[in-house]
């Protein structure tokens, strides 16, 4: 982990230490990857941009990858989520409690916006199979 220099704050390389890392919800459940990082640019030209949120999900991933593969992913995502609103799933930076090998988020996984497809798969497919609710013995 990067050292925290008093009065200066910990330094984090966004691509190396934040992007593409695992989001972990409060209950220890996995809640997607950091697919993009959102900044706010203040009106003051001398101020530095600051991180406001982490984007996660197929839409953000497609945008981040770009190129032909990104387009293909984006098309797949649009097809799968036709009736949903298009904004990418987002985790507010205020919920993030630790940035390490995983990014710890102070929220239950089921409350996070990033797990819509997980819930859809659960409700429409997996729950229909007997034994879906039991932990393996």
């Amino acid at each position, binding site marked *: *982990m*990067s050292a925290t220099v008093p009065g200066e704050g910990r330094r984090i390389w966004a*691509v190396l230490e934040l*992007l*593409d*890392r*695992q*989001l972990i919800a409060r209950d220890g*459940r*996995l*809640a*997607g*990857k950091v*697919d993009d990082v959102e900044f706010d640019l203040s009106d003051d030209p001398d101020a530095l941009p600051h991180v406001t949120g982490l984007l*996660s999900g*197929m839409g953000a*991933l497609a945008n*981040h*990858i*770009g*190129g032909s*593969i990104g387009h293909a992913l984006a098309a797949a995502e649009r097809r799968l989520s036709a009736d949903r609103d298009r904004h990418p799933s987002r985790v507010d930076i205020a919920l993030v409690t630790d940035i390490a*090998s*995983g990014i710890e988020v102070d929220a239950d*996984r089921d409350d996070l916006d990033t797990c819509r*497809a*997980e*819930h859809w*798969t*659960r409700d429409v*497919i*997996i*729950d229909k*199979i007997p*034994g*879906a*609710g*039991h*932990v*393996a*013995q």
Partner: protein
Amino acid sequence: MKKLLGVTLGILTAMGGFVDIGDLVANSATGARYGMSLAWAVVLGVVGIVVYAEMSGRVASVTKRATFDLVRERLGARAGLLNLGASFFITMLTLIAEVAGVALSVQLVTDVNYLLWIPLAGFAVWLVIWRVKFETLETTFGLLGLAMIVVVVAVVQLDPSWTQLWHHATHPSVPSGEGHPTYFYYAIALFGAAMTPYEVFFFSSGAVEEKWTRSDLMLNKANVYLGFPLGGLLSLGLMASAALVFHPLGVGVENLSQVALPTSVALGKIGLAFIIVGFVACTFGAALETALSCGYTMSQYFGWQWGKLVAPRDASRFHLVALLSVFVAIVVGLTAIDPIKVTEYSIVLSAAALPLTYFPILVIANDRTYMGEEVNGPVQNTIASIYMVILTVVALATVPLMIATKAGS
């Protein structure tokens, strides 16, 4: 005492779980065709998987992140996705071969065509994934796989001239009438059979699921340093049995059933019974590992919940991927595509794809901010770097050799 038992159990599991359909086919086929003169490729592959798996297990224990999680983290989304495509395809190919292998093994005791067993075998694989705990399945099939020790007994029973076997293994040469490209093609097949990527996906995901920590590093080392080489011994046993029985007669191994014949010749019905139990356990265990690995790689790339510690409904996409993978394996298997050919392609392509996952793990094993004191030492790094070069050479040579030798024919 209990700890010692745990370590022993781990070693035995790693040993029994080492062999899968790729090892069965590749070792027998090369033993029959080249005698022991390709034993070096098995040794090279076993040392390679030891280096690779030890790093992956250590990285997983320290960071709590499994292999494909780290592949994405270190290579980025784009290169990671291409990597996922290749790794998933090869793991899928292996799964097809393993499911067909279970069916072929059952055919040997029932004489009912293997195509009829494929759907049943696939269903059984899925059911175990759906219902059975990680530890139970790993231990059960690992220990049942120990039945393969019978091939070593068979080799002893065949009473070979050990000095001659040793001489052939230590003085490798291309037999007259055989081209160099084909010889090296088979070397790559053996290398890929020993060093299949799914083994590492499964091993590292298991380490994360069983909540390994720094204090389990000893267990990791014991499993890897003892279990895998002992498993490699089974591979060499398969090779030697084929070299002794088939090589002098000019028999080529084209079917899984032939792999059992030397043991039957040497030890009769009891030996045959053991080796067929070994076949079923090894292929079934590997089918489980590959089906799970399909789920692991995909889920770990996209950050979905994975694993068997939670109910299937709480890891819904992971279970969906595993379910679909098994389904695809059944459908492809039922097309009557030659399972032995699929196996050969899967191991050769495995060898070609190895650098894709090995490379990021090697980088992370050197990341002090991640690994702290557990980074690679200078000896580990030297060996690991040599393997990085070997893997790159193998990867570059595979496709040209495949074309030049018409896939080893």
